[in-house]
């Protein structure tokens, strides 16, 4: 009798073991539930087509072309002819083997997932692969679109699209591995508009990974929604022309339509080669190691000393503060002497009034003006006067981000009283101590975008619209802040006084001393101001800002060329050629155009080579 009970106890004990294992598998462990989903449902992502970027005239700047990604489901891969596979895609068999080692290491995590094996293979490679696909179980091709660029220009402006990485996914969980995202430029700032919405097909598969059927006849499938197009303010031809002019030069050109704040061209040179943009990952190392830093968008990031073009701001502030009038004259004896020091100037007739000072770019005139601004009796201390000056400068957009729709825009630099308190000690500095600010040197840094905005502000006689790159279109509405006039703290009545000087600088007769005579184009009434900013590293930087025509200006431009020399020699012709191109559509000064395109100034730029 006892043996019966032992046997029954044994049976129940074995039953208990089975139940415990059931509990373990069904209740305790999650891994099997997850595996099961991977097992049976196959979500085939349908990637949307990214929206187009059009230029202001409706030309396609950024389009799409078909490419293919090669996907791999590691668990389904059988032995295959690696060499054959590598020949198709031009791969190194060792790399392929390495990749498979990695898959093996993470096989538990990968499970039944498909991974991207190769990105953006060409149509030819794709068709060869498809023919031989039966030889490579576990591999498949997915059609993706990649970008193409009908205008061979604007790489830095448009930015690039790349596959999201693990870091990005962590911060933006709505993205999945394999998705593309705009990583810089317009692609980045208008990602939400351009990206569209992914769709998917839900398929059920059986053990051999044969697609068994569409889940519920596709009732839960979702179509991809194509991204919306954006209409850029850029003029594709102008952008392209500007880049041609800027080739082999380091610097930037920014063109703005003053009446709207729309950016017509935004050039940073040297930039990313547009041919490499669509497949930037392949060239990434090369680009990053380029000593001229093509990824660095000088137009919105580089804080340059503005040089003499900043005299316009000081002149306007002087007029507003009442410390000068258009008739005020200062003499210049090859410079401005203060204490035992001298800030030099070039040879020109003296004394000058406001117009002449702008036309001939007299340094002494602005030293006197700036001194008068800072030593204005209205203000109890020089600090107060300086703060007032600073506030007025900022009203032109300097020393802060303008707030354009371009990512990575930087604010430049503008010193504060505490900057000088730190350098010289509190109350230990005077107007003469900071006198280089009068001519746009010293502790001030402005981006080319700031300078173009200055040109637009003067063109508008006292206000600007925040420069922006995208227009209203059926699909997108731009932020209302781009439609507000931003007035400076200088009264609009003062602007025509400096414009006269700018006009003279370009259009004065030979021998009159105009600094920007190379910018002159008959009939266009270009008004401009040159600058030659000191660069501690090598030759001076050439600067020029201008707008045209004088009345109802259509375009305002800033050109900034590093280590080029005189602003009037290099920056003024380039800016004026762009004005001519934009306004006339053709160039009358073929020789100048040829010289500008062919001259290389890049060798003047000292670079720190990476070791």
């Amino acid at each position, binding site marked *: *009798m006892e*043996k*019966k009970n*032992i*046997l*029954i106890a*044994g*049976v*129940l004990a*074995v*039953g208990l*073991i*089975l*139940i415990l*294992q*059931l*509990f373990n*598998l*069904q*209740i305790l*462990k999650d*891994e*099997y*539930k997850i*595996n*099961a*989903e991977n*097992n*049976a*449902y196959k979500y085939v992502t349908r990637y949307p087509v990214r929206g187009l970027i059009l230029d202001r005239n409706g030309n396609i700047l950024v389009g799409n072309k078909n490419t293919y990604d090669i996907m791999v489901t590691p*668990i389904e891969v059988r032995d295959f002819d690696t060499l054959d596979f590598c020949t198709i895609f031009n791969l190194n068999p060792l790399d392929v083997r390495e990749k498979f080692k990695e898959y093996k290491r993470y096989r538990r995590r990968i499970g039944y997932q498909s991974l991207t094996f190769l990105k953006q293979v060409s149509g030819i490679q794709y068709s060869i692969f498809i023919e031989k696909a039966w030889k490579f179980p576990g591999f498949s091709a997915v059609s993706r679109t990649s970008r193409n660029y009908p205008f061979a220009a604007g790489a830095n402006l448009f930015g690039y699209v790349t596959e999201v990485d693990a870091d990005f996914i962590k911060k933006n969980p709505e993205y999945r591995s394999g998705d593309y995202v705009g990583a810089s430029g317009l692609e980045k700032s208008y990602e939400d508009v351009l990206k569209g919405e992914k769709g998917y097909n839900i398929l*059920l*598969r*059986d*053990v*051999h990974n044969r697609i*068994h059927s569409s889940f519920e006849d596709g009732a839960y499938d979702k179509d991809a929604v194509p991204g919306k197009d954006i209409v850029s303010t850029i003029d594709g031809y102008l952008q392209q022309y500007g880049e041609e002019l800027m080739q082999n030069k380091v610097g930037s050109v920014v063109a703005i339509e003053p009446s709207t704040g729309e950016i017509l061209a935004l050039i940073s040179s040297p930039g990313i080669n547009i041919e490499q943009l669509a497949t930037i990952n392949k060239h990434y190392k090369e680009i990053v190691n380029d000593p001229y830093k093509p990824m660095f968008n000088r137009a919105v990031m580089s804080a340059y000393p503005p040089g003499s073009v900043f005299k316009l701001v000081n002149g306007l502030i002087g007029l507003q503060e009442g410390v000068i009038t258009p008739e005020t004259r200062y003499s210049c004896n090859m410079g401005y002497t203060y204490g035992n020091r001298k800030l030099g100037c070039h040879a020109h007739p003296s004394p000058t009034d406001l117009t002449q000072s702008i036309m001939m770019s007299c340094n002494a005139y602005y030293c006197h003006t700036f001194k008068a601004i800072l030593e204005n009796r209205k203000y109890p201390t020089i600090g107060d006067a300086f703060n007032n000056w600073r506030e007025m400068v900022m009203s032109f957009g300097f020393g802060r981000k303008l707030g354009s729709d371009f990512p990575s825009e930087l604010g430049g630099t503008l010193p504060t009283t505490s900057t000088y308190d730190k350098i010289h000690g509190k109350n230990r500095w005077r107007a003469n101590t900071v006198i280089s600010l009068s001519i746009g040197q010293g502790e001030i840094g402005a981006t080319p975008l700031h300078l173009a905005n200055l040109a637009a502000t003067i063109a508008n006689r006292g206000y600007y619209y925040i420069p922006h790159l995208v227009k209203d279109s059926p699909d997108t509405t731009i932020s209302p802040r781009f439609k507000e006039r931003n007035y400076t703290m200088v009264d609009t009545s003062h602007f025509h006084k400096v414009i006269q000087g700018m006009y003279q600088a370009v259009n004065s007769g030979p021998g009159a001393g105009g600094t920007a005579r190379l910018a002159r184009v008959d009939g266009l009434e270009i008004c401009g101001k040159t600058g030659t900013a000191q660069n501690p590293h090598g030759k001076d930087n050439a600067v020029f800002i201008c707008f045209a025509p004088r009345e109802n200006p259509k375009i305002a431009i800033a050109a900034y060329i590093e280590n080029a020399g005189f602003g009037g020699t290099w920056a003024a012709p380039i800016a004026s050629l762009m004005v001519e191109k934009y306004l006339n559509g053709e160039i009358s000064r073929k020789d100048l155009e040829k010289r500008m395109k062919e001259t290389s100034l890049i060798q003047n730029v000292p670079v720190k080579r990476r070791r």
Partner: protein
Amino acid sequence: MGNSFKIGKIDMPLVLCYLFLIFVGWINIFASVYSEEHSSIFDMSQRYGMQFIWILTALVIAGAILFALSHKIYSVLAPPIYVAVCLLLFAVIFLGKEVNGSRSWFEIGPVSFQPAEISKISTSLFLAYIMSKYSFRLGRMRDAVSVAVAILLPMALIVMEKETGSALVYCGFIFLLYREGLSGWFILYGLMSILLFVVTLAVSPLAAIIILFLLHAIINGIYTGRLMRHLLLALPVAALLWFLPSLHTLINLEYLNGIKPEYIAVAIILAFAIFCMYKLRGKRGRHMKLLFLSLASSIALVFSVEFIFQEILQPHQRARIENLLGITEDLKGAGYNVHQSKIAIGSGGMWGKGFLDGTQTKFNFVPEQSTDFIFCTVGEEWGFAGSVAVIAVYLFLITRLIVLSERQKDNFTRIYGYCVACCFFMHVFINIGMTMGLVPVIGIPLPLLSYGGSSLWSFTVLLFIFIRLDMERWKY
């Protein structure tokens, strides 16, 4: 004797268990091969349609056993049936159809059947026949041999058919023998052998030897009533043995090179055992001899594991065992079935995915899912709750068989009842254990649930002969 008179004596709990299980089997076969095109559960072109026919015929057979056939024929026919089935088992080795490398199926026209399935019944009847003889004593050599032959003959034939899994079921008869007087030490010895086998493979022969040593020390301790003393002596020795390999390299004696630590361990243990035998000489002589025999044979087993594993087992069996023990991980080869099966069961969760909603089983992730791996479908679609219910019914069925067997006055019925319980137990434990990765993959069906006429019929006959015999207990 009218039928109404008899029906009252039928053990309804067993019959209800039976009906419940075949019903569960049927709907799960339906679920596991279900597809939209053949959505009728009576579709005869599909397995569930066929199973429906098997069920109907099985019920007819059950009815015939209960109401048409005399209970007396079984004890009379047991020897001829046994002989006939053994002949079939033998014949099928040469005449059978080869399926997956084994020759165990007869194919006669459209019908195919497996003699190994019937042999469970014939062996059970024959065991009941010889062991219920008045003069039978299990302790007597002649009777013990006849029992051993009765079990081992069909077992050997089935192994020759390369149906090792089915042969393993016969090991279950050891529980019957235990009930009928065999010492419990044999079962313990069997369990210990399995343990040693597993430890030798999964850890190392040295670990197996240490465990062996400790077990024998404990057994001897319990037997002599000096457990503490034995442990105090054995544990340090065991610890010493465990560090033998590191000592080995530490001392680095020239003449020890080439001598494996296991050999040294065995030498120490044997010396230890001989010392014990010397001290206890004369007292409890038989016990000491048995213990020493067990120790020596177990050591022999440990050293032959490698040989058995590499030479005797077939590659697929080796792979299945290695996979179970986690020695190798091959989710696509040998481990594939079990891995998929665990995924299917595990994904069921508490309440399951619902009837026909199991994605794993429906799309053939689990091979053999309507036959050997039918439990996956239960696990996936009915969850923990449903699986426990099914296991509980099996446990009830088996214990009920034991309880009913014990209340028999007729030895034949009791022994036969235990045989039935043993067969059910082995099948259920091995099959469900296999689907959950507790037991190596052994291809035997889950009684009454798995698809297949042979299996369903034979378990029906096996069970209903007992129910029929049980009806006669009133007579005495």
